């Protein structure tokens, strides 16, 4: 038996330095500021500058049972580093998409936030496959997933940003390949925690 997928917006995960906690309506200002940061917004869908819009989005999200948004926090100082989500969860195919992954410039939370998000997806949600769809131009993120051990599935549906169509690529990890990906991310997450040494 695998865990039933129901609306669970209470999932948390802790790692060596960072942790994931559920997104809350009170995170609206942080999310708007993060997503509208000019250095981060190049490869993501446009975000309304309105905190009220973000609060409304979060309230609607909390009613969805196939969507899990997390805030990435530094466990030492409590500061918010960014966001990450597992969404489009298909309980029949037992797969979901990892994305809405945005970290503040200079953050070292990338390996551990991905590690924790996958861990929740495979071990708490019982998924068998997690995929990431990234604009091909977003080379560092495509490379990150490759470095983690994700396999390229091929082109994903193109994404239109500012009226221009952009190629996207799908990369994935399955429950079979998850232990190898976990090892790669663990190694990097441990190194990040040691670099940051509180």
């Amino acid at each position, binding site marked *: 038996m695998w865990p039933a997928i129901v609306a669970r917006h209470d999932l948390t995960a802790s790692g060596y330095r960072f942790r994931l906690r559920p997104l809350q309506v009170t995170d609206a200002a942080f999310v708007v500021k993060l997503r509208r940061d000019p250095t981060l917004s190049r490869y993501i869908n446009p975000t309304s500058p309105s905190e009220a819009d973000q609060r409304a989005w979060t309230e609607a999200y909390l009613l969805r049972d196939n969507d899990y948004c997390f805030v990435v926090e530094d466990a030492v100082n409590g500061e918010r580093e960014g966001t990450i989500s597992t969404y489009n969860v298909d309980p029949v195919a037992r797969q979901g998409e990892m994305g809405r992954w945005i970290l503040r410039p200079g953050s070292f939370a990338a390996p551990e936030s991905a590690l924790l998000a996958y861990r929740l997806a495979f071990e708490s949600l019982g998924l068998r496959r997690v995929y990431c769809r990234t604009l091909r131009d977003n080379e560092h*993120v495509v490379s990150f997933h490759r470095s983690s051990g994700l396999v390229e599935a091929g082109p994903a549906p193109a994404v239109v940003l500012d009226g221009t169509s952009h190629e996207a690529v799908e990369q994935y990890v399955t429950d079979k390949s998850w232990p190898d990906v976990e090892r790669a991310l663990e190694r990097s997450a441990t190194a990040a925690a040691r670099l940051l040494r509180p």
Partner: protein
Amino acid sequence: MGSSASEDQIRDEVLRLVEVVLGRPMDGRTVTRESEPAWDSLKHVELLFALEDELQVRFDEDELASLTSTDAIAESVARHRGAS
């Protein structure tokens, strides 16, 4: 004004480690994260960790975010070693 021999040596050591961690030779002597697609967030952490280990330095947490090029790293290593 040219750089000292020790600075050149540090630059070479940094570049060699970048090549090891990224798994391929670099084209020039100066490499930046922005210009090198394989220098992703995972490799970045591994690189800084390897640099501390191999070059026997301890980067300050406050400077970690700025170590995004071989030049910046070499300057930091030189500073930590008291070589500049």
